[in-house]
Every structure is written in structure tokens, then in C-alpha cells.
């Protein structure tokens, strides 16, 4: 039994949430509330499985390349395979996902009152898509998982979202489908040009003609850039984040965006290294623009969820800055930033969800002075905001610092302009904190707000602890992926 689990740990982790979907579906409508517990249970054992996976990864890790590989023919005539395996980066992404999903479910505990069954089922389904995308080593398999996470997300936003949910969901769908279709075309071009290969590891070794590389890279890059999102294809994100229910926002910001960056790391960049070199100045410029513009626009948002959404544009700009710099420091920083942005922004969305569930408003101007009323909530929010602003000693700092180093090493001007984002980051977050928490309580309704309850504390404390741990000892995250990063850079010709 145990050896069998050990050798299939990856598949088990990916599909455990799917197992949870079954009992939820079979649950009679009048016991619907139970779906929360079922979903929480399955997401938690998925988390435990992913930790076991981490442990097995540590044991089996080969310095470069993939471990915990499972490879089975899927559609043999077309040479499509069920081929999964992880390197350090996918490991971190998977654990991040399995960590955030239970928290998202717990965050949605009382928020979702209608169609709970469907909601919980869709969340678990999204998790399957996300985990699969992070583990797939077959291009077509990747595509399937990629679409699998998109569709439930569309429903999560469209059914349980805010006032403008339909518009937001449509925008999300159109944007991402547009990218996906281009990607699908590119996948088949690669498939045809490589002698009908979908296996990523084999494809890494093949050198496509530079002309074709550029077109294929552009198609992949557009699909991934939309997901990241890179400026200027980011405008779906503020709407989707803002309108989504809390759990949706947490998953969107925490993991969804990461798939875009991960796609660059796993597929778009190593498959087309020559094209990347050509496109590098463009990628770097868009990242830097995203960092600064995202922060500037975040600054003047009247809606706090939208503010955090724009801050994600800025933070993900740092990720792409590091990744596209093709330096060790930059890629290290990008990976750290992926994890840490997930933790910090996930926590911010949870916090906003907590206060929204009491006040039913996201407008910053409806708040003011609530630090006096809800001291614990305020302390937690300010703590997380500081982590998001990259305070040294907390989690985001090292990643930001390393990505900036990468940008600086690529070209000083990129590092310098991107560093402005660090100033602006403090500006928009502290201004938000000031307007929400400080001053006198101006809104009568806010005078009787309830502070954090035990469920909410359970949500936040683990994340806040991780912020300290990863800030002080980021090697916990860096050690498993150093080898993978250098393999990646070798593939890129560095």
C-alpha cells in the first residue's frame, strides 16, 4: 500500500479533490451545509498529501530534472500521454495551491448561502485543474488542465460574484479563451513541427526553426501574459478579482495568476529560447510598466478589493521582471515572489472578505477609524499590508529584492524604474490603511463591528506565521528549487 502511494503520490494529490466532488454531488440538497465540511476535509487531505509529496521530493530529488514522474499512454495513436512530474518550482506551486484552497473554503464558510454544493464542488474542480497544470509534462495534458481550471472559475465569478459579476465573468472568459485558442494553435504547430511530440522533456531538446519559434512563442506568451497578467492585457483582472466571492479572489490572486508565470517558466520560455532572447526587451519593458502603472492605478482606487487587484498587477510585474531577466537572482526572486504574493495577497483578500461580510461594502470611503473598534482585525490587516509592501523581515522583501537585482543586472534602467514600484507599494497600502483604520469612526454602522472570531483567526494565523518564516528564512523555499532554476537557465542558454 505505502509503496504504491509513494509511487503515485503526484496523481493522488492532483485527483484527491476530484474524489471529494463525488460525495458533494450526491449530498441531498437539504444537507447542503455539509458540503463545506466535505470540501474542507478533502482539501485538507490534499494538503497533507502534498506535504508528503514534498517529503518524497526531498528524498528522491535529482538536482536537475523532474521527480515523482508518472507516465502512461493516454491517446496512443496521437502520442498524447498522461505524463506528470515535478521540479522544485512546480512543487512549491502545488503546495501553495493545496495550502490556499482549504483557507479559501474556510473563508467562504458563511459567505456563500446559495447553491453551496455547486460552489464547493467547483472550488475542488478548480483545484484539480490548477494542480494538474502545475504537474503536467505533456503539452496536451497541460492544455486540458488549463481549461479545466478556467471553466469553474468562470462560474464562481458569474454565479456567486458581486453586482457586476456577469460582465466580469464574460471579460475573464473572453480574455482567457482568446489566449487559450492562440495557445492551442501554437501547441499543434509545435506538435506538427516536432514530429508529433507532446512530451515536454523531449521537446526541450528539440530546436525549432527560429522563425517558427517566434510565432509560437508569441502565441504562448500572449496566453500566459493574459493570465499573469502583464500590462496591457490586465484589464480583466480588476473586474474579476473585485466581483468574485472571497474564495474566488483568493484563488484567483493566490494561484490562478501563478499559472501564467509558471507557463512562461515551464513552456513558453524553455521551448523557444531563441525567441525569448528576441522578445526579452519587450517582456522586460512590459513588466516594468506593469509594476509602475499597476501601483499608480492602485493608489487611486476607491474600492479596496480593486486596489488590491491592481496591486497584483504590480506584484506580478516583479515576477515577470525576474523571470525574463534570465539571471539566477531574477528567477529565484520570481519563484519566491510567486509563493509570497500568493500568501500575502491571499491573506489580504481573506481580510477584505471578513470585513465585507460585516459591512457589505468595499468602498474605502465607507470606512475610517475602525482600528479602535476592531483592534485584532486592524493589527492583522496592517501586518499583512506591510508584508505586501515588502517590509524586510517579512516574506515579500527577499523576492522583490532578488527580482530587482535580476532586472538591474539585465539593464540598470529596468532595475531603477522597477524600484519606484517599491515606493509606490508603500504609498498605496499605507494610504489604504490610513483611510480605513485611522481617524475617527465616521460611519455609524462601523461603531458596532465585531472583531475576528476563532474561525477567522484560524484562517489568518497560519498565513501570518508563514510571512515571518519565509521572510526570515526564505531558504526553505529556495533550497528545493535552486537546482531546477539552474536547469531552466541552462535550457535558456545561460
Amino acid at each position, binding site marked *: 500500500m505505502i509503496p504504491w502511494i509513494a509511487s503515485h503520490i503526484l496523481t493522488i494529490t492532483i485527483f484527491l479533490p476530484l474524489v471529494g466532488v463525488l460525495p458533494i454531488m450526491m449530498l441531498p440538497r437539504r444537507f447542503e451545509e455539509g458540503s463545506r465540511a466535505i470540501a474542507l476535509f478533502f482539501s485538507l487531505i490534499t494538503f497533507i498529501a502534498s506535504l508528503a509529496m514534498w517529503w518524497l521530493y526531498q528524498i528522491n530529488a535529482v538536482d536537475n530534472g523532474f521527480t515523482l514522474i508518472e507516465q502512461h499512454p493516454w491517446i496512443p495513436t496521437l502520442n498524447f500521454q498522461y505524463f506528470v512530474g515535478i521540479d522544485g518550482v512546480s512543487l512549491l506551486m502545488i503546495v501553495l495551491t493545496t495550502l490556499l484552497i482549504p483557507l479559501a473554503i474556510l473563508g467562504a464558510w458563511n459567505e456563500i448561502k446559495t447553491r453551496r454544493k455547486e460552489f464547493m464542488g467547483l472550488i475542488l474542480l478548480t483545484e484539480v485543474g490548477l494542480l494538474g497544470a502545475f504537474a503536467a509534462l505533456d503539452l496536451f495534458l497541460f492544455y486540458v488542465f488549463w481549461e479545466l481550471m478556467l471553466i469553474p472559475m468562470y462560474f464562481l465569478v458569474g454565479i456567486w460574484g458581486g453586482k457586476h459579476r456577469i460582465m466580469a465573468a464574460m471579460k475573464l472568459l473572453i480574455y482567457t479563451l482568446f489566449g487559450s485558442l492562440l495557445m492551442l494553435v501554437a501547441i499543434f504547430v509545435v506538435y506538427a513541427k516536432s514530429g508529433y511530440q507532446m512530451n515536454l522533456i523531449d521537446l526541450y531538446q528539440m530546436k525549432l526553426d527560429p522563425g517558427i519559434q517566434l510565432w509560437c512563442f508569441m502565441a504562448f506568451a500572449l496566453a500566459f501574459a493574459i493570465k499573469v497578467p502583464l500590462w496591457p492585457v490586465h484589464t480583466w483582472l480588476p473586474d474579476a478579482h473585485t466581483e468574485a466571492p472571497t474564495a474566488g479572489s483568493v484563488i484567483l490572486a493566490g494561484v490562478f495568476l501563478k499559472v501564467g508565470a509558471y507557463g512562461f517558466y515551464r513552456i513558453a520560455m524553455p521551448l523557444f529560447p531563441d525567441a525569448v532572447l528576441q522578445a526579452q526587451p519587450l517582456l522586460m519593458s512590459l513588466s516594468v510598466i506593469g509594476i509602475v502603472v499597476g501601483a499608480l492605478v492602485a493608489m*487611486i482606487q476607491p474600492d479596496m478589493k480593486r486596489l488590491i487587484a491592481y496591486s497584483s498587477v504590480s506584484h506580478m510585474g516583479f515576477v515577470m521582471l525576474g523571470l525574463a531577466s534570465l539571471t539566477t537572482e531574477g528567477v529565484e526572486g520570481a519563484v519566491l515572489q510567486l509563493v509570497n504574493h500568493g500568501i500575502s495577497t491571499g491573506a489580504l483578500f481573506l481580510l477584505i472578505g471578513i470585513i465585507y461580510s460585516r459591512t457589505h461594502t468595499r468602498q474605502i470611503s465607507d470606512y475610517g477609524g475602525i482600528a479602535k473598534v476592531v483592534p485584532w482585525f486592524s493589527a492583522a490587516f496592517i501586518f499583512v499590508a506591510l508584508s505586501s509592501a515588502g517590509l524586510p*523581515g517579512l516574506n515579500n522583501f527577499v523576492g522583490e529584492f532578488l527580482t530587482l537585482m535580476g532586472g538591474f543586472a539585465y539593464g540598470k534602467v529596468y532595475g531603477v524604474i522597477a524600484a519606484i514600484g517599491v515606493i509606490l507599494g508603500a504609498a498605496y497600502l499605507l494610504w489604504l490603511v490610513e483611510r480605513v483604520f*485611522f481617524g475617527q469612526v465616521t460611519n455609524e454602522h462601523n461603531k458596532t463591528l465585531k472583531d475576528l472570531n476563532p474561525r477567522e483567526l484560524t484562517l489568518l494565523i497560519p498565513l501570518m506565521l508563514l510571512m515571518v518564516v519565509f521572510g526570515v528564512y526564505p*531558504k526553505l523555499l529556495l533550497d528545493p528549487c535552486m537546482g531546477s532554476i539552474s536547469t531552466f537557465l541552462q535550457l535558456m542558454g545561460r
Partner: protein
Amino acid sequence: MIEQLLQHISIPTLMCLIPLLPLLGAIANGKMYLFSTRSQWKPSHALSGTIAVVMPLISFLIVAVLFYIAMGLEDSHSVSTGPLFTWFGGTQWAVTIGLKLDQLSLIMALVVTGVGSLIHLYSVGYMSHDDGFAKYFAYLNLFLFFMLLLILGDSLPLMFVGWEGVGLCSYLLIGFWFTDIEKAKAGKKAFIVNRIGDFGFVLGIFFIWQALQPTAQPGDAILSFSYISTHAAFLAPVATAATLLLFLGATGKSAQIPLYVWLPDAMAGPTPVSALIHAATMVTAGIYMVARLNFLFVLAPTTLNVIAIVGCATAFFAATMGLVQDDIKKVLAYSTVSQLGFMFLALGVGAFSVAIFHVMTHAFFKALLFLGSGSVIHAMDGEQRLSMYGGLRKHLPVTFTTFLIGTLAIAGIWPFAGFFSKDAILWHVYSSGHFWLWLIATLAAGLTAFYMFRLVGLAFFGKRNPAGPHHVHPENSVTMLLPLVVLAVLSIIGGWVGVPHAMGGHDHIMTWLAPLFPTALHEAGNESTELFMGLGSMTWGAIWAIIAWILYSQHRGWADQMAARFKRCYTLLVNLYYVDQIYDAVVVQPLLWFSRSVLWQTVDAVLIDKILVGGSARIARLFGRVGTAMETGLVPHYVFLLVLGSVVVLGWMIL
């Protein structure tokens, strides 16, 4: 049992305890505060206060012990923990965490923990009526943790952790009474302005990192101070850029032109905070950083000139702004900015140890002055306007005496502490050949004496303003008086460790620091000239002091007449040269407008959403419409299109 315990207490353990003890205090008080907000239980003031005061006190004792040990060491006078663990790094380099105490950081650590402990003690009395007692001490202890990390950190990134951390605590403490939105705004302003400086700091680190990378072996801690100093030669090509950027960081933290604007607003915090953070310790971090990296700064003469000029200009302009302030704390705030300018001036002319000497004496007398002003404010029910005071010397004898000592020290009157350090600065500026800088600095020194004695005159002499608070609370809190007395003593004798040879002293502090700093960049001047100029500078200060004392305690009408006569000048000064308004109009408002109107409402909403996304949808729909329109179901239409198509295709093939 105890012996075993002692065996484990090695020097590195002790060093780690220096910053960790205040951190523990911060955690303890922070937890107690948070729990007290949810339950009936409230931590007693005695408990929180004791924890908060004892932690820094133990740290101080440890530093003192280590100082004693280091003094006994033959060669290096420094102790270090070595690398404790690797924080992060690349393939070729690493950032390790480690603490180091050498001659420079020992002095700083002694001042920070010593003055820090006193101010903690004072706060017990000062904050005794405040609801957020435990929270206050949590922040204050946390500040000490970060400040000690800044000082003890053995690498640039670790220093930066402390650097930003003290900024955080400053933010929290300025906005401590956050229900007043102006105070919260002042805190935010401090943090953001400091972040502008930190932008420079980070980029400065990057320049150094890039230049040192080729020299590194895998695992080398290339950003540690020892590595940078031994490889300084490789940094020559980037020295100017790196040091200018680092200096930008220093102008933020140490409130120099152009980033000084946050410090006067920072006076919104509780007065002991102003004393500890915004006078004695945090704001001197920039000076400490330049002194720490002196080997780098001497490679960049341009930067040193910039530092000297900026320092001198700040010293002068801040002093002029201090002349007309009505708020007692604002006078002291501008005075602090001005004094920090003096320290940078010293750094700029290469007199690093003199700058550190002034950091030390300034910590004594400025902490004393702030705590004294706190006593006055406490006694006057929170009133801070000088115009509401008057004649307080009879009501607050201890405060008055100690405040006068502090004033004499800052005015540079022999034999008080400030005389020796300020005179040393002026002397080094003069003897290094910077005549104009010396002239302006001397003028600023005169203004210092003037505005300080103006303050003393307005507050402690003359008649009570009947519009002010009727009742003056007597000074009876021992916890508040003891720190005043100790600091007053230090403000008298603190300068004696740096009596120059010309005055028959031994210049201990310079000798102690000498191994760290390059030997003087210029020829030492004539000793008799030095003595003469010392006498001159004291006389100069005394003259201004007397003028101020006459104007503001004897003939107040004269001062008003002067203000009326030079109305324009006076208005300009009262409005602080309109710097805040200019920054707002030139930087803040345009940035907000650009973000809102251009980036958000035009680029995002119209250009991308409407034209690109909406446009592509419209084009798709257009194709759909065309397609639909063609499906008319009428055969002639289809035949027509068929013919048209054939013609086009044939034409294509033929041509």
C-alpha cells in the same frame, strides 16, 4: 547548573541577546495589549512597564560588558558572531546573517541602549494615563530591536532590515494616537518619504553587488561590510553612483534636504518617541551608515562634496525655520534637522569620527531637551504653543535647570558636551579649506544658540500667558525626573571624552575610532589656531544666546517689531519656505491626476477596454453581421457572390 549555564553564554550568544531582548519585550507587551482588548483582564502598568524598561536595560548592560571586553582586546577591538545562517543568495554569492560590534557600533549601541533605557523609564511616567500603555511599549521595544539590528548587522542587507524596521516603528509611533487623522497622516508621510530614500539605498546596494560579483567565490558574503572594505578597490568605478544613491537613503532617514519634510510632522508622536527616535537614535542612522561605509565614500570625492554641501545647507535652512516656530516641539524638530546637517557636514569633509562624536553628544542633549519639553507639555495639559507658556521656571525647577543645561550644550557653550563636538566640526570644516561652508555653518551655529534661547526665554521666563492653561501640574514623577537628571549630567560631561589636544585634552573618542577611519583627508591645522577658533565659536554662540535672551525674556516687544519690519522674510519662514506646498503641487497632485485621469480612466478604461477589447468584440460581431447578411436565401445573391468570388480568384491567379 549555573556553571553549565555560564559555559553556554559565549560572546556570540550575548550579542544575539542585545537585539533579541527588546524583541521579546515587544512580543510580550504586544500580546498583552491584544488580549486586553478582548477580555476584562488588563496588564498592570507595573508589569508592562517593568518588562519594557528591563529588556533594554539588560541589553545596555550586555553592551557595556562587551565594550569592556573589546577594550581589552589587543588588535581589533571588535567582537562578532560570525555568520549565523544564510539568508538568501545567488549561485556565486550569499547574504549571511551575523552581528558585529566594533569601535563604531559599540559607541552607537551604548548610546542607543543607554539613552533608550532612560527614555523607556521616562515613558512609564509620561504615558501613565494612556489606554495604549502596553501597545506603546511594544512599539518602543520593537524599535530598539530594529535599531540594534541596524547598528549590529554586519552586512548591508541586514542593515537595511533594521533601516526599514525603524521606519516602521517610527510610522506606528508617530501615528500612535491614530484617532487624530492628522497624526496618522504624519506617520504615513514619514514612511513614504523614507521609502523614497530607501529606493536610493537599495539601488546603491545593487551597484555594489554588481561590481563585486566578479570577485566572488561561491558562498562569499559579498555584501558584508568586511568583504566590501577588503574589495573596495573593485568598487572605484561605481563608487560615485553607489555612494550618491546610498546618500539619498541617508537624506530620507536622517531628514536632510530634500527629504527632511517628514521630521517636523513626526512631532505628532508622543514626546518620548520624538526624543528617542526622532532626535537621539533613528535619525542618526544615515550618519552611521556613511561612517560605516567610509572606505567607500572616500573613493567618491564628488559624493563627499555633495554631502558636505547638503549637510551645510540643511544645517542653515533648518535653523532659520527654527527661529519662528511657535510649537515647542517644532523648534526642537528643526533644531534636530539642523544638527543632523552639521553631522553630515563633518562627514562630507572627511571628519568621520567627529560626526560620530556629535551623534553621541547630540543624543544626550537633544534627548534631554525633548524630554524636558515633554515635562513642560505634561505639566501644561498637552499645550505645545510657546506663546501660551511663560514664567515656568518657578513651577518646574528641575525641568528648567536640566533644560537650561541642554540648551547651553546645544548652543556650544564651554564646557558643555555640545561645545566640543560642534567646535570640532567647525574646526575640521575650516581646516580642510572649505571656507564658505565654514562661514555658513558658523552662522547656523549662531542661529542655533538664538532659537534655543528664544525657546527658553518664551517658556521659562517672562509672565505666564493668561490664555494658557491655568494650572501647572507640579513635577513629581520620579520616573520622569531621573532620566532628565542623568541626561543633564551626560550633557555636561559627555563631551569630555573628546577634548582636543589643543585644549589640553586627550581626544579619547578620536583615538578609539581612528582605526576604522581613513587618516584625515587634509593637513591638520595649527593647534593655536584651533584653540583661538574654539574661543571664537563659543563667544559667537554666547552673543546670539544673549541677544535671544534679551529679546524674548526681557523685551518681547522688540521681537514683534522685528517680525513686523521684515514681514516678507517672516512670512516665508513661518510658512517654511512653502516646501510642503511645492512638493504637493509639483509631485503629489500631478501624480494622482496622472494615475486617475490618464492611466486609469483613459488608458485602462477607454484605450484597452473600449477600443482594444470592445473593438475586437465589435469587429467579431461585424463579421458575424456580414455573414448573416449574406445568408439571404435568395439564389441570385448566391450566384452573384459565386461569380464575384471566381473573378477575384481568377484575377489573382492571372496577375
